[in-house]
């Protein structure tokens, strides 16, 4: 049986608090929403969007519809990440709409949320906010892996080949995405792909420093600049 990565085996860039490294943040504030919730706020005559929770496959469509309905100037993000391709697709929608992205003080944006953040035409990370890198993984569907390995050597080999192929494809898509967003592509090999996604101790989380955020052009405004609006509670 040839294994293909169906909808059940998601490419995820999802972080969990228990796996945070000691030098990162022990209790990242990325909400427990299992589907990204989008809320529109009025702030000094300007409409803001607050995006909170796991990046799900339906996010690009919801975001697109909302941006057509409202004149959103800026989006505030907190999320543990989620569907890798949905994060990139949603980031492209933000860029096309010319929306700014911001991670307010105390909030965390991990995994595919970091890619979503890169979609902002102006990108701000406030002091005390976290951008957390993780490696993508296909290991979300343990049952599919169990079935392949249980079906013998050839099925296992086919699964591993398919995972390598899919990983190479996604890495190439990531390169395309970060280059289009004006972020230095070296951040992928230097930081994101240098993390372990599915090791014995679970996924590794890597908080980017302020210097790294600037070096790779992940932020393109002076650190701490709020871009307007109050810090949400």
């Amino acid at each position, binding site marked *: 049986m040839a294994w293909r990565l169906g909808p059940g085996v998601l490419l995820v860039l999802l972080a969990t608090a228990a796996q945070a490294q000691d030098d990162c943040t022990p209790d990242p504030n990325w909400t427990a929403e299992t589907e990204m919730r989008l809320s529109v706020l009025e702030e000094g005559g300007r409409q803001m969007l607050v995006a909170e929770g796991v990046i799900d496959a339906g996010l690009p469509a919801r975001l697109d519809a909302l941006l057509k309905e409202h004149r959103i100037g800026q989006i505030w993000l907190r999320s543990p990440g989620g569907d890798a391709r949905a994060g990139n697709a949603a980031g492209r929608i933000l860029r096309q709409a010319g929306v700014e992205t911001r991670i307010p003080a105390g909030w965390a944006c991990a995994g595919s949320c970091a890619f979503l953040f890169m979609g902002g035409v102006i990108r701000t990370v406030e002091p005390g906010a976290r951008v957390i890198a993780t490696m993508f993984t296909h290991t979300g569907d343990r049952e599919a892996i169990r079935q392949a*390995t249980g079906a013998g050597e050839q099925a296992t080999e086919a699964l*591993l080949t398919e995972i390598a192929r899919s990983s190479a494809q996604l890495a190439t898509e990531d390169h395309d995405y970060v280059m289009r967003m004006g972020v230095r592509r070296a951040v992928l090999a230097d930081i994101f792909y240098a993390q372990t996604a599915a090791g014995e101790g679970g996924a590794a989380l890597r908080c980017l420093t302020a210097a790294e955020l600037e070096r790779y052009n992940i932020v393109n405004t002076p650190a701490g600049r709020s871009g307007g609006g109050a810090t949400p509670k």
Partner: protein
Amino acid sequence: MIRKLASLLAGVALLAGQAAMAQRAQMDPDNPTCPLNPNVSNYREMRFTAQEVNGRKVLLAEGMIDDNLIPRLEAALRDDTIEEIWLRSPGGNARIGNQAGRLIRATSLPTRIPQGWACFSACNFLFMGGALRFVDPGGLFMVHMFTHTANREAIRQEVAQGEQNTIGLIGEIEQQSALLASEDNDFLIRMGLSRALLTEVMYRQSAVQDEHNRSTRRCLTQAELTRYNVINAH
């Protein structure tokens, strides 16, 4: 080994003609875009031979891309009368192929896959190093994706130790694939090729057979070579 001009011309022409005919005659049923026996040379280590062809000094690069290729290529490239590099190879060490490609680009020399010759796998990256790149009609630029499944015993052992080890193995494969793809992307950008070659062709062609798909290589047409800027000269 140095050959006389006359014997070279005759030899290369004969070789190319015979191989081209053979390639046309017998296509590979498992890999319908490629001949059954592509002429990749069977030297176990790549040999570099400077020859004069039609009044031009050509460096013939033939055989497997081995771990110790770089110093030999450097030595061969010290001959500043070389005007072009001709390639036939079954591939070999991917990172060495990449390194050799960069070395070739630094010299600004053209690369060519002559009629009847084939350049496969890691050889692709050596070829891309050419500032001007020619694939003559009847020459083959043959690709597949990198693989991690060559060491079956290691895979068997990891899987036998249970689910957690299998998950760890998958994590390693994901990470190594992403890093290798990053190197491929970087290389193609620097060499001026379209990265769509990776997503549309290379990464769609498995290097290993499975029970449903026996294909392990893909030969590009002249139109594809042009579309992805693999060739930029005729």
